[in-house]
């Protein structure tokens, strides 16, 4: 398959791994920002190919993981209303709120549907004029253009039974927050390629300078990730801290201007709480005043009570790269994908779920034992 097979080619991947082994002379800790990158790393066993000097820690770029508890509770409450069809991307449905997930709401009679695009939700609104169609808009800059487009179209066509529950977050403020923490271990970032496809990478230049940290815009295939690691290690070894673009086949320096314009037309920057991390100023998007009538929070004003938190889950530390999933005492025992304590154990992009499903440690050359089954 074009644009995939060449980036999964055994020889090319092995050669790039060899190049990393040659250039890494000291221990370095790199963070891949996006959950999609974490998924590839763990699913393809890429860590097996890296030298011991390189530690990859997993970033906050899992949309499902960072959506606040209160917002999930709100989505569940909206989904239970008889007039509502609540639409969401698939892996959002399993994420636990304080007492229930959207799957639970569905089992209790709520009309909850998986869609592949917010424009599909808009189409549902057109074809169900007597129902209220609510799209649960989560994610980073990657999903923002299509979400903006859906609201923009709804306003233009006066589709009055469509609204959006917005929980959008932005990557650069989260990277700054991670770097500002006194416990930060991250020495270089593999920035999220698809976020940069939309936004470009100019906004990373001041972060790289301020914190003296290399940032490499990186794709999602095994060869992309290894090349991103190689480009970051080359900088670290030579004491440089620059923004470089590994994912040049998709990302331009200035990004996708029409997409940025549509986002800016519909959304404005606001403070957002990140699940497991806390509130970060100017780290999210909400609908602008002109589009406020499409805001599901306005349309369905629901009192959400104080959410009760588990003390055991260390999701916040995992999302900031300060702990690995298997360093959590509940990992694979009290916390599994069937009984998750925290959101990173739910989505396939979540670091804990990725470790649970694909994680392994080598006992010796021949025997690979699952961390997940160690509980037996």
């Amino acid at each position, binding site marked *: *398959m074009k644009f995939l097979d060449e980036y*999964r080619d*055994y020889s090319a*991947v092995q050669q790039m791994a060899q190049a990393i082994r040659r250039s890494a002379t000291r221990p370095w800790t790199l963070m891949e920002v996006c959950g999609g990158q974490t998924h590839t790393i*763990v*699913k*393809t*066993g*890429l860590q*097996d*190919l890296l030298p011991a000097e390189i530690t990859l820690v997993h970033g906050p770029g899992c949309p499902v993981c960072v959506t606040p*508890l209160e917002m999930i509770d709100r989505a569940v409450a909206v989904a239970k209303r008889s007039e509502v069809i609540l639409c969401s*991307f*698939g*892996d959002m449905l*399993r994420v*636990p*709120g*304080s*007492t*229930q*997930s959207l*799957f*639970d709401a*569905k*089992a*209790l009679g709520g009309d909850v549907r998986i869609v592949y695009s917010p424009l599909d939700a808009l189409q549902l609104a057109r074809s169900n004029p007597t129902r209220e169609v609510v799209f649960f808009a989560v*994610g*980073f800059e*990657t*999903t923002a253009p299509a979400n903006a487009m859906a609201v923009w179209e709804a306003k233009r066509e006066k589709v009055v039974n469509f609204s959006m529950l917005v929980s959008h977050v932005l990557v650069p403020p989260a990277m700054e*927050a991670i770097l*500002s*923490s006194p416990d930060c271990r991250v020495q270089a970032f593999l920035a999220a390629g698809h976020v940069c496809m939309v936004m470009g990478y100019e906004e990373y230049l001041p972060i790289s300078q301020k914190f003296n940290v290399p940032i490499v815009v990186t794709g999602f295939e*095994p060869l992309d990730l290894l090349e991103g690691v190689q480009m970051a290690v080359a900088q670290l070894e030579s004491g440089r801290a620059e923004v470089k673009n590994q994912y040049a086949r998709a990302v331009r320096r200035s990004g996708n201007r029409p997409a940025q314009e549509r986002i800016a037309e519909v959304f404005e920057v606001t403070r957002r709480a990140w*699940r*497991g*991390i806390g*509130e970060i100023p100017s780290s999210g998007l909400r609908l602008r005043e002109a589009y406020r009538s499409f805001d599901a929070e306005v349309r369905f004003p629901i009192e959400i009570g104080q959410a*009760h*938190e*588990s003390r055991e*889950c*260390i*999701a916040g530390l995992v999302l900031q790269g300060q702990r690995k999933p298997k360093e959590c005492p509940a990992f694979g025992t009290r916390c599994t*994908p*069937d009984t*998750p*304590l*925290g959101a990173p154990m739910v*989505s396939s*992009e979540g670091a804990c779920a990725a470790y649970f*499903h694909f*994680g*392994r440690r080598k006992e010796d050359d021949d*025997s*690979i034992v*699952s961390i*997940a*089954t160690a509980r037996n």
Partner: protein
Amino acid sequence: MTIQSCPLPRPATDRILLAHGGGGRLTNHLIESVFVSAFSNSALEPLHDGAVLSANGGRLAMTTDTYVVQPLVFPGGTIGDLAVNGTVNDLAMCGARPLALSAGFVLEEGLSMDTLRSIVASMAKAARVAKVPIVTGDTKVVDKGKGDGLFVNTAGIGVVIAPKLVGPESVCPGDAVLVSGDLGSHGTAILSVRNGLEFEGEVKSDTASLWPAVEALFEAGVEVHCLRDLTRGGLSSALNEIASLARLRITVEEVRIPVCAPVRGACELLGLDPLYVANEGRFVAFVPEREADHALELMRSQTASAGAVRAGTVHEDSSGIVTLRTRVGGHRVLDMLSGEQLPRIC
């Protein structure tokens, strides 16, 4: 920055979720905690595709399955094809020659008679191809809105021709793992119709009777240790069930497992892993290493398993897990699916 922690959700086990039907961990939990504990008996407990019963000195296999697929007609087949082939295949996986099937229909008020006729015709045709008669049946009609057009249940009995027990208990270290063809076509065909997706090169369901391929193995005297059709949960779930019951480790190589280009493309687009996608005409066979080449040759001589490959090996290791050597040379655990496969966000 303040650190919050994550919430403790109520485990989702006090109510049936769709994921309980997904063929993964929740399905297994449901079967073991509700059904096995209530119905407990020696024929049920192996939890194979069918039960093997002794009768007058011979052995019979018995199985049942219910079909609830939407849409009722899809590229490559209908719910009727699935209902016949699925039950024939469950018998085949017990090493049993299909003897007869039953068919039970739950019809929703308002279902078009033409739709019903065409589905029944496809069942009749599939039964003729599989050389098995449908000898008894039942019909119920439910109010509009209480069914999804049509549900079908089939049960089957077969005569066991396998000389020894065919099941995970018989799998041995060193056994070769043979997969009967390319994976993921059925699940992808259904999803593409449901989502209105079109791909270059139509993806068709692989629904087919597997009995001719299985019969060829037994007729030639191959020492078959275990057979499993790769339906819900796909290859990964089947291998995990077998590894866990056999208390052995199975290793498979990603590059050896065939997935056709349109299915790969669709799975990339939909965020699915073809190793977990359902098939309706594929199976995995465990045979001793010395018989692997002969078994592959026999399987490849049959239409439904013409694309058979050697995918992996069984190892002495009581961990009961499945590991995959990935295309790029890494390793990972090929785990059981938790709930349904859900499309990722980005």
